[in-house]
């Protein structure tokens, strides 16, 4: 199987969907002539031309709203946000319009739009460019949110998102863009709402999403080598819909749970996951649920401190040992 990067996997998803459906349009700042601020869309303009690959002005509320309007008439726009942090200037469009229009019209309208781009800290760019809005957006019924952690999932989830008839927000991670992995050449999708066991284990379940999955896998290796602990890592892949059954099945097997995410702790994704586990697997738990998230402050600029602000393997190991104590 070919080994390609997370970035190339995203590009392959878009290329395949552009070929499959003439209603698919790629739109965003610098996606065409510039070849993408992070080179995710590199080469697409040359291959598909300016009608399908469209550079927009820096005008998120305008072009995201335009994409939503076009999607109501059956266009399938894949909108790139240079950073999900920039979604905040388009929040009314992203939440009120895309998220509510099906409901408010009593099901008469649907909105098959994809908005994708990086949503992560850890890149030494300060608080305004380091937001992780998956929990904020997933808290709105009407919206779907996915967070791929690997090249395979990046391609499969983005293709599923483009074919989905609801608004799907794909949150990527610039730090993962160069990560490589096996990705089939052929057409496949990763169904939205299905978690993946990225590592099997028996003593502790770590639930994570996005880059926190990679961090947790590194921690799991340390835990096994240095502490003889067998860790299962559940990658949520999708935040809403949420694969509750896979989380619960794993916790019922290991009896201990540690939740890891790059969000800030208050009302993060894992607040919901923790509620789920205590509500439905309370009797299976041998210890209180543990949690690792970013240190609760706006993202610090200083790179050395930012690396410590985010979950990192040593912090995950430490928290795991507490849950295992």
């Amino acid at each position: 199987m070919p080994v390609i990067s997370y970035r190339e996997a995203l590009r392959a998803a878009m290329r395949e969907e552009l070929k499959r459906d003439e209603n698919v349009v790629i739109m965003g700042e610098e996606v065409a002539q510039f070849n993408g601020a992070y080179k995710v869309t590199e080469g697409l303009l040359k291959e598909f031309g300016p009608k399908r690959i469209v550079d927009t002005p820096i005008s998120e509320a305008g072009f995201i709203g335009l994409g939503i309007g076009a999607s109501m008439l059956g266009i399938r726009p894949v909108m790139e946000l240079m950073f999900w942090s920039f979604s905040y200037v388009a929040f009314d469009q992203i939440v009120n319009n895309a998220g509510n229009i099906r409901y408010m019209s009593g099901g008469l309208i649907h909105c098959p739009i994809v908005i994708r781009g990086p949503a992560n800290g850890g890149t030494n760019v300060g608080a305004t460019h380091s937001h992780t809005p998956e929990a904020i957006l997933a808290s709105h019924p009407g919206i779907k949110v996915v967070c791929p952690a690997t090249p395979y999932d990046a391609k499969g989830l983005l293709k599923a998102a483009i074919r989905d008839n609801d608004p799907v927000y794909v949150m990527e991670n610039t730090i993962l863009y160069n990560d490589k992995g096996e990705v089939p050449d052929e057409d496949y999708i990763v169904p939205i709402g299905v978690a993946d066991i990225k590592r099997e284990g028996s003593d502790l379940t770590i639930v994570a999403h996005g880059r926190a999955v990679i961090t947790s896998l590194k921690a799991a290796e340390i835990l096994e080598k240095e502490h003889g602990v067998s860790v299962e890592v559940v990658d949520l892949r999708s935040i809403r819909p949420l694969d509750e059954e896979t989380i619960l099945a794993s916790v019922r097997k290991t009896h201990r749970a540690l939740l890891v995410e790059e969000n800030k702790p208050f009302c993060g994704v894992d607040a919901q996951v923790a509620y789920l586990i205590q509500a439905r697997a309370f009797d299976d738990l041998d210890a209180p649920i543990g949690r690792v998230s970013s240190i609760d402050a706006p993202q610090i600029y200083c790179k050395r401190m930012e690396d410590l602000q985010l979950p990192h393997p040593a912090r995950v190991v430490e928290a795991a040992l507490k849950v295992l104590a």
Partner: protein
Amino acid sequence: MDGKLTTVAKSTAFTHPESLKRPAGPSEFAQHPVNAALTSAEKIALYTKMVRIRHFEQRCIRTYQQGKIGGFLHLYVGQEAVAAGTISLLGKNDHVITGYRDHGHGLMVGMSMNECMAELTGKITGCSQGKGGSMHYFAPDKNYWGGHGIVGGQAPLGTGLAYAVKYRGLKGSCLAYMGDGAVNQGAVHEAYNLAALWDLPVIFVIENNGYSMGTSQERSSAHPGCLAKRAEGYGMDWDIINGHDVYEVRAKTSEALKRAHEKSKPTVLEIFTYRYFGHSMADPDKTYRDKEEIKTYRETKDPVFLFEKELLLAKVLTKELVESINQSAMEEADAAAVFADESPDPTVADITKHIYWEEDNRGPQTTSRGTIIFE
């Protein structure tokens, strides 16, 4: 203190359409080709639609006062010629989207009074099954895309509808309406820029009724003579229209439609109009304008009466016909109120329907799994 540091708005005089500066008389646009082409039956139909909007809205007041309509109710009384004139020109690839004062547009595109009234009272028979309310009427089968509650938020959507029309290579347009209060929202300016930059067949229609809620235009908008003229900043064509004369609305809108259909170019139209009731039914309408102003508009510029007078003079209408049109519109509105009364509420189970297409259409074609509605 330096006067420049205070926030008292300066008043900029508006440039009004020429026809609005004179006492209202027979329309000077009656012979414009789009109006001259109308048969007597079509003129009567246009008048009837305006009358229906008025009586529907007036019936809404009663239903509201009976406590059957919750939330906000923004009435269109006084503004009928705007929706009637513009929408009467549209063809099958022309689309409509507006803000929250959306009843007139809904009736004009052909929504029934029943579904409109039932939506106001939150019934399952409403156009949005009681999920949208007054501000969120939708009829996509009639190219009507709402009904939007956030001021100016619909402008990018309308631009996107026009983009889709152009993408498909169709000769069509989108009329994106907004109030005069929306023109200061960033989303509107972003939509202007994209529309002009990409030559999209969108017509931004500013329904200038003089007040954004309780704040007059003089106190809210800096402008170079009128709000439409801001279009020049984006290299767009614009026009100002007397919204009390349905013939003028049709004549000038038809030019913008031609520009959209033939050149795929956007236009900003500012239509001067007036609302007789408060911003919404929650507005006691006592603080920001005087009663004399409302009275003057009602007596001298009423769009329905002016058109009626015009058609009576032209012997298209008779007194008897006017009476019977009004009578049936009132009866239709009364019947709609009864229909709404007798319709059932949505059920608790309905609360969680129509959130996701994939949930409402579960089958082999749906790709998502997992829990999507949470307890």
